[in-house]
């Protein structure tokens, strides 16, 4: 709960909220604010969202509803190695779903989740604009092309060895 008045939000986020407050219907910027916050922090924490609610003067219930309704908001931290599987059309046609399945089995987590040890998280992206290399997987900032399900264990150990 937010008994404390001491701020935990990033200065640039606070600044953005302040700016929204000068516009008409500041509450309509809630989604953009959450987006910026996620970009900055990696995921949305309850404390951060309470503070956004207070600063923007939007009920916390609304913030919690919005943050769990949209797929793109992440409520748990990413793993040290963020695995992202492209599910764009080209990659999908080339079997991205099977790669996803292989990662899920190997890591024991679902899309949007992080392994207990905090090492790996799974998420999807839309077309990365490199369809020629389909199917594509990225782990942090490395791109892997023409991935097959069989390569999955190898990709994981390579990430760890880095």
């Amino acid at each position: 709960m937010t008994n404390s008045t001491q701020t935990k939000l990033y200065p640039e986020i606070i600044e953005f909220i302040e700016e929204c407050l000068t516009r008409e219907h500041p509450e309509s910027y809630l989604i953009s604010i959450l987006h910026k916050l996620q970009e900055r922090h990696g995921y949305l924490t309850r404390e951060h969202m309470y503070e956004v609610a207070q600063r923007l003067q939007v009920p916390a219930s609304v913030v919690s509803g919005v943050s769990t309704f949209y797929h793109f908001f992440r409520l748990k931290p990413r793993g040290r190695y963020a695995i992202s599987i492209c599910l764009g059309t080209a990659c999908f046609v080339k079997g991205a779903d099977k790669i996803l399945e292989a990662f899920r089995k190997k890591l024991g987590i679902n899309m949007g989740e992080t392994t207990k040890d905090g090492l790996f998280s799974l998420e999807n992206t839309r077309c990365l604009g490199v369809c020629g290399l389909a199917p594509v997987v990225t782990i942090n900032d490395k791109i892997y092309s023409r991935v097959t399900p069989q390569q999955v264990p190898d990709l994981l150990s390579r990430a760890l060895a880095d």
Partner: protein
Amino acid sequence: MRRMLHGMQIRGCTQKMKTINLIIDETPVKVPEQTTIMQAAETLGIHIPRLCYHPHLSLEGACRICVVEVDGARNYQTSCSTQVREGMQVRTNSPDIRQARRDLVELILDNHPKECQTCERDGQCELQDLAYSLGVRERLFEGKRKQYPIEDSSLSVIRDSEKCILCRRCVRVCAEIQGVHNLTQMHRGFNTVVTPAFEAPLMESVCINCGQCINVCPTAAFLEKKSTDEVWAALADPAKHVVVQIAPSIRAAIGEGFGLPPGTPATGQTVTALRRLGFDTVFDTNFGADLTIVEEAHEFMQRLEKNERLPLLTSCSPGWIKFMEHFYPELIPHASSCRSPMMMLSVLTKTYYAEKKSLDPENIYVVGVMPCTAKKFEAQRPEHYMENQSPYTDAVLTTRELVWMIKAYGLDFTRLSAGDFDHPMGVSSGAGDIFGTTGGVMEAALRTAVAKLTGQALTDLNLTQVRATEGLKEAALEVNGKVLNVAVANGLNNAKIILEKVKSGEKTFHMIELMACPGGCIGGGGQPYPPDGHYVLDPEILKLRASALYAIDQGKKLRQSHENPYIIKLYEEYLKHPGSELAHRLLHTSYSPRYPKGIK
């Protein structure tokens, strides 16, 4: 977003409305433009089945139970949200439509427990009624059903998400009427759930315990926290002297629980029923109300004299008090320090009355019958505990719980003779009675304050200018050449409007009455579910309940709290004078800010 925050629909203005001609079920009908198909059908006596719709909340259009066929439209139209058009041809009752509605209800039931016989709302459930009237006679599906534990952290309101059909009425009432915005829908699809922010337990949320979510919920997904078991146990315990008190608004509404028309006063039968149930002493919270007025008028006059901490904000509604602590902590110094009438009476029962009767307060068990779920919370506030760590009020029953106990005991309420309250705390003025309706506390306080300030009673004791049936009222009256500005608000969204004026300094008020529930206590979150064909929040029902209280007041010779002979005696024998040191210790309290902080 806008709609989520400010969900109220803009209802059409009445000026220069065009008339629309349409045909519903082969019958021509004329209605003003902007009427919905559902409303137009009602003018013909056709009741289209519905679920998420509530006439006093914004439109949701989510359940689709209210679908009708409209000529030329490709899909069925939801009649609660579709407005009439010239020449429209509507069918509300074709076999296809009836089948479609039945399918929708079956889908809801597929994801609903089969627990009617053991459910608190059995016999008073809108979903059950709907399933029956649409002809659902089988439950075939045996698939995956949502599973949630009962959320019973709150002292007032419990939640069973398995019985929730996601109509969002509770979300709407909490936001649109109460301005609390405690509830929301989280997640999506099969995992959608109604909950306070971030799935916090109700006890850790900004919930003010008003129970309006219980009142509007069509199912048993929201209920009051039950206290009947403790009360039965106390009644059966020979060592306990069980004292009960009933709030002013109980007498105006309890009859509805037994099929009496709204607005039937039932003071005497209620007293008799309580005696039959085995309560040893039956007191009237009205006595506490009279006492509150004497103390509060005294407090008011002191502040007026010193011109400090004005406006005085009334403190008898525990929902409002918790709202203030979350949402307006900066106004805490303005709140009257008076405990509520229930608390004053409970305290005096375990002190003054115990001494008089030579009873050990430890053996006295005090039950309050209240229209209000927030009273359950109030009774448990540490401020209202005795030095020995037990509460002054041991249990609070809602009107609904008492109705159930009377039925469970096998009493035929409507045939009971009228009984009388016990002395000394059973005698009250008419001012105490009207506490149960919006504006009543103000009217009662002014009757006494004006008499004390000017040395003579008001020429007309009926202060109709402060009766706020519309939710918000401001009035001014001249006393000793000075204008007193007063205001009355019920429903906390209305309270916000007035409190913002206080904060901005836009207007100087001297006293403001605030009640959490629409219409005041008569519309409380523990009152009987409305009779067939009526809705909760229906201003007609509220008006009838209020008129019962005004009639009782009008019929009494004693109409001013400070003239109550037993109040006078209480001061002579015990408290000495209003605001005395003892009065302060026993009858006053304090408040503090609460978290999470509410968002205005």
